[in-house]
């Protein structure tokens, strides 16, 4: 596991890349060296104690050479709103890198990444790493409408084949990104060795179903409300099947998204809502 640090890191640049979605570049000499794709940082959004708790945000890109990391985040409430208002040059109080990160198997040749909405955030770093490891990478991005599809160009520049799906039909594939995935697997016959995905729960659930059906290993990045971010408060749990499968009934335990995750084997997650 990487060393966890509590640092003040400078905002080097900030840009609204889509309505209410911001990309920020942060000077993080130590954290960038430790960071792995799929990990996150726990951010104090403002300078005072409102909001009180930190907010978890994925590491979007890791630039070890320059000692920089990027975050991509969407305004959904007070914390993310205040974060978007922080000025270039400000120091952000962050803890990280946190969580386990994605696990790319050495033997995998073909990799599929699927991001729903802001769920693309952790996938760019993963895409960069996969391409560095000479994998064939395809990326699917789904969003409600065209304006909310972010990062398409960044994935393409890295050398991934990218398809987009807008639910409202305004761009790319008309329909759900999960339908697009099914078409690629069944009609096109492109079978990845691993799927990595992050996004809204119903999407993740559907992708896991598809992956199980096609016997493809699938890792999902989950979200839960967090307190400490370091495994101490047990505030951030999700339901994970326990190893003992003797009985018919699915047995589960609560695992911490912040330290046991945020990345879990899709087949292990219990989706009950």
């Amino acid at each position, binding site marked *: 596991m990487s060393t966890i640090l509590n640092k003040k890191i400078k905002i080097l640049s900030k840009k609204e890349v889509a309505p209410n979605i911001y990309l920020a570049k942060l000077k993080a000499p130590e954290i960038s060296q430790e960071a792995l794709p799929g990990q996150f940082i726990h951010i104090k959004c403002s300078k005072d104690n409102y909001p*009180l708790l930190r907010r978890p945000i994925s590491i979007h890109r890791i630039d070890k050479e320059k000692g920089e990391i990027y975050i991509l985040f969407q305004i959904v409430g007070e914390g993310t709103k205040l974060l978007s208002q922080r000025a270039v040059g400000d120091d952000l109080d962050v803890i990280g890198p946190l969580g386990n990160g994605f696990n790319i198997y050495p033997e995998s040749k073909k990799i599929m990444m699927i991001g729903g909405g802001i769920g693309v955030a952790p996938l760019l770093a993963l895409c960069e790493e996969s391409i560095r490891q000479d994998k064939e990478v395809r990326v699917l991005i789904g969003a409600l409408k065209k304006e909310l599809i972010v990062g398409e160009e960044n994935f393409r520049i890295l050398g991934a084949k990218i398809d987009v799906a807008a639910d409202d039909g305004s761009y790319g594939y008309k329909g759900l990104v999960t339908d697009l995935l099914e078409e690629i697997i069944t009609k096109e016959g492109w079978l990845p060795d691993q799927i990595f995905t992050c996004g809204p729960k119903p999407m993740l659930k559907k992708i896991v179903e598809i992956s199980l059906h096609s016997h493809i290993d699938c890792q999902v990045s989950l979200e839960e*409300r967090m307190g400490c971010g*370091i495994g*101490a*408060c047990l505030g951030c749990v999700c339901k994970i099947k326990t190893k003992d499968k003797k009985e018919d009934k699915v047995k589960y335990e609560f695992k911490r998204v912040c330290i046991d995750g945020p990345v879990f084997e899709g087949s292990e997650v219990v989706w009950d809502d």
Partner: protein
Amino acid sequence: MIDKPNLEVGIAGIKLKNPVMTASGTFGYGQEYTPFVDLNRLGAIILKGITLKPKKGNPPPRIIETPSGMLNAIGLQNVGVEILIKEKLPYLKKFNTPVIINISGDTIEEYMELVRRLEEVSKEMGVAGLEVNISCPNVKKGGMTWGTEAKATYKIVSTIRKVTTLPLIVKLTPNVTDIKIIAQAAEEAGADALSLINTLVGMAVDIDSRKPKLANVSGGLSGPAIKPVALWMVWQVFQTVNIPIIGIGGIIKVEDALEFIIAGARAIEIGTANLVNPQTTVEIIEGIEKYLMENNIKDINELVGSMKI
């Protein structure tokens, strides 16, 4: 100016190098905080509430931020006492800081068996004392009910007292009509110290889905929002009992800690603040020392309950 003021305090027969402890449930099993805190600096470490058997806890969402605070409904998820002994306590032995175990149970029998087990291993595993949680609002059985009625409090505390010689701290709930009566019952039953307060029961509603924001519906409120309530309760209990009081509730900076000490707390616990700034404990220890020096106070004990009215 005083050169090196005395920060040492005695609680329930436990010698603390300073009055700053960690509040149960917000500092895990200690190890989680080693990237940020030298555990040797702390007055004492109080661990996540433990039960005889492992506990699954409540479904998520378990926490939600509220104005100047948060609600939690963890439901006492914990590894159970055997894993605590085997896997968590050995790590803490290498630190020169007393480890206090926060205990919970559904029945008197469970508390007794748990206490016996901890007493058994206390020397070998370095258990300095017990904090009896009779105030957890987030479990169905037991939990808080022990702490909301004086007779029940007396019964549980006196029963535990009979099976252990370990220092006994009783943690009180604020969800009562008169905390003085409960405090008195705990003292009479043989508590060596009292810690207060645990969280206040509360709730939050999502107006779009019209569902409660916590899966458990209700949760325990903690953080700066509860500090004035906690202070008032500490002050009331200070005037009622003769045993030491540990102040808890919304302490995030040194001034908060000093308020509690002046109102009668011999030591304090830091909870929610650990989640926000993991270095809070150490910063507050340094802040207390500075305050004593600047105010020419030789000994922290002089400050305890020194409120002028």
